[in-house]
């Protein structure tokens, strides 16, 4: 064990392109400071651990008992010594606290004019809303620009965790939490959900995509105009995934919370009232805008309304997409 620790101690200092033994890649300005403190505590710990275990091993060897009647000899107290080993750790922990605290305060207040992105966590996906109204399931940011995330949740508590940025903040329903960062390296970085939120907590993943200078704006414009750029069915698929329809509707025939939409279009649907209706454009539209009006037999009326949340064109695109689900 001690050998392993010694090995770990000699681990390479962190670099920016690949992580080291302990830490993942560094992707933000803040990461270096966190790593610095991490290694500061790490070496302090290593020192004390080596000291304690080293002494202990030495004592066990040096003072091992030879006969059951042998008694140990030595002082049973030594006040100056005891005060010393109270005060030294005290000083060290004050230093540790201070470094951690100042670092945290720096991260607590975002610089003026930071680029703001809104984040909503929901079982079990992330939605990132950009200032122009576009919503994406990944976090796209420009490099070297302070970005501020305003985070909330739609159901239970989630937590937005970007290891490469050494950042984490809970998404709490009913309130906004905030965090900010400045990405330093273009690239893709993993996002996790770090607060337990149920069945698919471990699948609530997303990516942070850090765009090289100038690229972000292009990407955003392009992405926001996806309705113009893509075929309606493609755009519909994108919307279908982004707006959480997939949570309740499968496209492969399995039944989850809502009915599957595979091969549904153009067929008859049985309602709770006993009526049958044709699954056509109108029915789809009204199902999305006023889901409580016609309930499919065997399902609960839990689908939320998308009135005011999906534009007309978007609904048309979704309908085109549903048509393709054969």
């Amino acid at each position, binding site marked *: 064990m001690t050998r392993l620790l010694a090995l770990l101690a000699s681990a390479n200092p962190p670099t920016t392109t690949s992580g080291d033994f302990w830490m993942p890649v560094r992707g933000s300005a803040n990461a270096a400071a966190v790593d610095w403190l991490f290694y500061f505590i790490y070496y302090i710990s290593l020192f004390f651990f080596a000291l304690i275990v080293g002494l202990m091993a030495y004592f066990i060897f040096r003072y091992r008992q030879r006969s059951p009647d042998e008694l140990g000899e030595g002082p049973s107290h030594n006040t100056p010594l005891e005060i010393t080993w109270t005060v030294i750790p005290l000083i060290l922990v004050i230093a540790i606290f201070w470094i951690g605290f100042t670092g945290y305060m720096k991260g607590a207040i975002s610089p003026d004019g930071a680029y703001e992105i809104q984040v909503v966590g929901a079982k079990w996906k992330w939605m990132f809303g950009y200032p122009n109204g576009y919503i994406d399931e990944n976090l796209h940011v420009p490099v070297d620009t302070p970005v501020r995330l305003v985070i909330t949740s739609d159901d239970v508590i989630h937590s937005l965790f970007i290891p490469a940025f050494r950042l984490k903040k809970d998404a709490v329903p009913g309130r*906004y939490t905030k965090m900010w960062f400045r990405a330093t390296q273009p690239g893709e970085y993993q996002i996790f959900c770090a607060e337990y939120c149920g069945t698919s907590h471990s699948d609530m993943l997303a990516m942070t995509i850090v765009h090289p200078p100038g690229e972000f704006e292009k990407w955003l414009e392009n992405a926001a105009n996806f309705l113009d750029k893509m075929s309606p069915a493609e755009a519909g698929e994108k919307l279908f995934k982004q707006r959480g329809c997939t949570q309740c509707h499968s496209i492969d025939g399995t039944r989850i919370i809502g009915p599957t939409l595979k091969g549904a279009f153009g067929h008859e649907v049985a309602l709770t009232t006993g009526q049958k209706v044709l699954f056509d454009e109108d029915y789809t539209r009204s199902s999305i805008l006023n889901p409580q009006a016609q309930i499919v037999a065997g399902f609960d009326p839990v689908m939320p309304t998308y009135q005011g949340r999906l534009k007309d064109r978007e609904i048309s695109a979704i309908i085109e997409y549903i048509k393709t689900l054969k």
Partner: protein
Amino acid sequence: MHTKGHSAHPGESIGGVHVMPVAVLVGIWVVLIILTVLTVGVTYFDLGPFNLAVALGVALVKASLVALYYMHLKYDHPFNGFILVVSLVFVALFIGITLLDARQYQPDMIPGYAPAMQKK
């Protein structure tokens, strides 16, 4: 009843245990009632932030009276009183810090957010 009550002198004790004279018991009760009326009375005046302070101050006095006389703490081993005070301090600490925090994060709350509340 009364005559019997008076037969006990203040400070009388039985087997090392203090017995409270009736006069003291009733006297404390009268003071407690007066303080209660006072607490209610004060709320009809707006003292601004002092309302809370006055109310809690009076409550503290009342609580001390109950503890010292009705609960015999005045005549008990001080350790028992210490336990009571320590528990109260910890409770106050918990409530105090938690409320302080709640107050600090108020600005982050989404106003009126309570989607599952029944609206009639």
